[in-house]
């Protein structure tokens, strides 16, 4: 008969325990989980990357809903257990669900510590513990106002960096003299403070908070020394306390945490506890590695293996703020019986300190360069006598035994039991043997099978090097296609990091994202220019030298070096005055070819570059502006004559087409954007093979997208049906903006849609009115800067140098 296992809490520790248990004793238990948070098990370590925008919530889910279904586990989301009846062996949730257990696991985690100061319950005071807190911070950050983070430890600094990255003016208050005083010595704390200050974060150490001031809502923080720091958001990150009240009320032995033995057993033989709420050997833990060790032990006991025992080990600490390399391990206080080795490189911002006792490493602080962290950790763990290599120890593993090793050789030289992934306690031998035995070929496979680099991800580089060592050339670490040869990053990473790090110039992108070339190439520069134009419409100064010639001179280059010019004809409608002006221009400049385009306008071909401004001047007098037939941007909106003329027409398709074109002209998009509006399903404007199309019907407007009629031929997909012209415009604009923000440069809308999924697009544009409106508003904002006719600008003299030779040398003009 299966036994009933009930788990209170659904964090990372019980999640890991279940994985082990399902492997060791599948089918032994019928599992029920109560989660006070209304969601599945996600990677809490990665909340900071979510806050900074480097990850999305979906990317940090450990067990999706499908996992629970697949393993027959019942998960109550949003149920907080309020009582344990140990006699009846039942638990009861705040929603009144009662469940019987044979074995109970308490994994209630911890609660953030709230400073006992006046005003700590005001609106605008939050903690940093779960996804709800992150969402509250993201919401507050939209105001771009002032935030104060209380607590200069790991969590507080990650919160501060995230909020600053989101545009808030952030001050960190820390009660001790230097930051992260529990993990860093003062020297490293100072370097960290300088780095954060360089990023615009204000830091006040030795700051004692007296009160939070405000009127129902936070307005600032009063310090003991009388200073008041204004703030609309206060994040308390001053520490955590094991969450023990449930266990205490149930009469279990509780000290700081729920007291358990080395087998995770509480004072009740049917109840285990693990995670941040558990106290083992007098210690409570907050980092993931020991919690995962608890999970392994608990699972073994539940599976009937009584021999498993939890063993304490020091865990290295790392700060998850992009661009800050920091590693701390063990004990690094000064002492008479201790020696230290210190390396400083001020210009490179590097500081390394090893604390030794009896020729053995007992503590390590690395700042600025942390590659040797794993090696020092290994030496410390094994209590290796380092007297032989003392002289060069601080320079790291690469300097031991003669010539410096390259990074690959350094990894190759690591012993099999060297720990690679600190979070999950995975050693080199385990990774290598799993790769070989299971024939793993991708990083994701290795993560799935070994858990290495599956938590905080900071050992990903090491894991990839191991894969290269094991698999040789058959392993291609660049599963993501790099944007070009100048970088290893793909388009998506570059776009994400531009936003996350607030990069607003091409040189800033190249510097911060470590471009391998000095000024890029013809592939990456136009892409970066587009991303920056799209992301910072009001702040970024368009770099014309990074645009392809057609967009630089606003005409289409032809094979003989002449240009073609296509004026805008709104919705394909023209009149005698416009046609006369075109005829006159053709005569005056002896334009060799006049042709009607597929987008319902007129192309003038074979114009010399020097004549372009004069041609535009004449066209401009007749009211023409650039048709942007050269742009990765809005091209034409093709129309049929619609209900005004056509006996089948159901709506004014011409009018809608013109309205859309007048609203959207000038906008830059990842690739060209061609549109059409057909007045009835006979579809004379061929709207169903366009990037975005509208097919009018009696009941309204059917919006289509993701068609293609070029290299690929593809009919459109239906986005949805809307009733009014206004709605049609709003949906089309929102869809365009979503595409603008998410697609890769030169990726047409049909390829983007295929990649991210049609349903996802429908969900965001049709199903989420707030999101749609936000996309729409951002497009409208961006248009304020985009709707300037480039032709009239150049007629007025802009970029004159583009259209004139620098010099003309005839005969007899030598310098002498």
């Amino acid at each position, binding site marked *: 008969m299966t036994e009933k296992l009930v788990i209170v809490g659904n964090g990372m520790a019980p999640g890991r325990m279940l994985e082990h248990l399902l492997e060791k004793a599948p089918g032994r238990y019928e599992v029920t989980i109560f989660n006070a948070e209304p969601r599945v098990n996600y990677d809490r370590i990665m909340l900071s990357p979510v806050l900074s925008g480097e990850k999305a919530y979906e990317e940090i889910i450990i067990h999706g809903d499908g996992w629970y279904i697949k393993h027959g586990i019942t998960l109550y989301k949003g149920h907080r257990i309020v009582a344990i009846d140990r006699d009846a062996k039942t638990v009861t949730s705040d929603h009144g669900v009662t469940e019987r257990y044979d074995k109970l696991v308490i994994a209630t985690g911890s609660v953030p510590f709230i400073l006992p100061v006046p005003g700590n319950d005001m609106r605008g005071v939050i903690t940093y513990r779960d996804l709800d807190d992150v969402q509250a911070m993201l919401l507050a950050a939209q105001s771009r106002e002032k935030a104060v983070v209380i607590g200069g430890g790991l969590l507080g600094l990650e919160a501060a960096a995230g909020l600053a990255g989101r545009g808030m003016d952030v001050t960190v208050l820390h009660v001790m003299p230097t930051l992260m005083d529990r993990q860093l010595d003062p020297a490293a704390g100072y370097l960290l403070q300088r780095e954060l200050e360089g990023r615009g974060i204000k830091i006040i150490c030795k700051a004692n908070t007296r009160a939070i001031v405000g009127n129902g809502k936070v307005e600032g923080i009063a310090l003991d020394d009388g200073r008041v720091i204004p703030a609309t958001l206060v994040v308390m990150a001053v520490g955590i306390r094991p969450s023990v009240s449930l266990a205490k009320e149930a009469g279990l032995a509780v000290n700081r945490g729920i007291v358990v033995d080395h087998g995770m057993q509480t004072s009740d033989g049917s109840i285990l506890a693990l995670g941040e709420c558990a106290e083992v050997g007098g210690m409570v833990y907050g980092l993931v590695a020991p919690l995962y060790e608890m999970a392994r032990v608990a699972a073994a006991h539940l599976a009937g293996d009584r021999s498993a025992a939890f063993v304490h080990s020091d865990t290295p600490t790392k700060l998850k703020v992009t661009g800050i390399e920091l590693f701390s391990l063990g004990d690094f206080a000064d002492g008479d019986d201790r020696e230290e080795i210190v390396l400083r490189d001020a210009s490179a911002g590097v500081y390394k300190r090893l604390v030794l006792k009896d020729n053995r490493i007992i503590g390590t602080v690395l700042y600025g360069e942390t590659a040797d962290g794993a090696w020092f950790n290994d030496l410390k763990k094994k209590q290796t006598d380092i007297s032989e290599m003392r002289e060069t120890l601080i320079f790291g593993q690469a300097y031991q035994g003669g010539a410096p090793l390259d990074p690959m050789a350094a990894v190759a030289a690591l012993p099999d039991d060297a720990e690679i992934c600190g979070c999950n306690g995975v050693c080199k031998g385990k990774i290598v043997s799993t790769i070989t035995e299971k024939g793993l070929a991708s990083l994701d496979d290795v993560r799935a099978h070994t858990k290495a680099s599956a938590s905080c991800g900071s050992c990903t580089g090491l894991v990839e090097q191991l894969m290269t060592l094991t698999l040789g050339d058959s392993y291609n670490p660049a599963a993501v296609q790099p944007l070009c040869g100048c970088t290893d990053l793909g388009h998506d990473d570059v776009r994400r990091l531009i936003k996350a790090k607030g990069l607003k110039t091409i040189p800033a992108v190249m510097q911060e994202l470590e471009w391998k070339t000095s000024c890029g190439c013809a592939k990456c520069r136009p892409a970066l220019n587009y991303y920056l134009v799209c992301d910072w419409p009001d702040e970024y100064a368009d770099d014309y030298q990074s645009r392809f010639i057609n967009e630089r001179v606003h005409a289409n280059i032809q094979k003989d070096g002449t240009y073609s010019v296509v004026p805008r004809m709104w919705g394909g409608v023209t009149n005698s005055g416009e046609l006369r002006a075109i005829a006159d221009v053709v005569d005056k400049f002896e334009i060799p070819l006049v042709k009607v385009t597929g987008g319902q306008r007129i192309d003038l071909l074979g114009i010399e570059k020097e004549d372009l401004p004069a041609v535009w001047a004449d066209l401009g007098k007749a009211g023409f502006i650039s048709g942007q037939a050269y742009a990765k941007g809005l091209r034409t909106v093709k129309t049929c004559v619609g209900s005004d003329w056509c006996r089948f027409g159901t709506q004014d398709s011409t009018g809608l087409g013109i309205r859309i074109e007048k609203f959207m002209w000038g906008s830059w998009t990842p690739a060209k954007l061609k549109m059409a509006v057909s007045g009835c399903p006979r579809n004379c404007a061929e709207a169903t093979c366009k990037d975005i199309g509208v097919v009018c019907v009696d009941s309204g407007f059917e919006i289509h997208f993701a068609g293609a009629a070029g290299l690929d031929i593809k009919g459109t997909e239906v986005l949805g049906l809307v009733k009014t012209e206004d709605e049609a415009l709003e949906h089309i604009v929102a869809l365009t903006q979503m595409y603008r923000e998410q697609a890769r440069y030169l990726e047409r809308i049909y390829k983007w849609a295929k990649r991210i999924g049609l349903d996802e697009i429908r969900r965001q544009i049709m199903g989420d009115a707030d999101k749609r409106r936000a996309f729409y508003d951002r497009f409208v904002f961006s248009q304020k800067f985009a709707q300037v006719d480039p032709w009239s600008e150049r007629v007025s003299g802009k970029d004159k*140098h583009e259209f004139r030779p620098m010099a003309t040398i005839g005969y007899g003009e030598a310098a*002498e």
Partner: protein
Amino acid sequence: MTWFPIGNIADIPLRGARCVKTPEGKIAVFRTAENEVFAIEDHCPHKGGPLSQGIVHAKAVTCPLHNWVISLETGKALGADEGAVRTIPLRNEDGALFIALERLMAAAE
């Protein structure tokens, strides 16, 4: 060899190019991000594209017609492509630029 004045370095945008018309055809004069100046024939060895209209990066230009990358120093096509354009001697005297044309001199006599 005779030197002809063609203007000032400031007439050329950084990471950009201008052309000079000569009886021998167009010459493209480039200015790199590092403020170096190079002159080559404005004629891609591939299909004759106007190199002066390309995107300038490091000491190279990408032709606007079919993306050949041409070295500004040697005039040679970089990467897998083969071909070269003539480089033109250029003198930079505190920003005043001169190019040398040989055949032209003979014609001018």
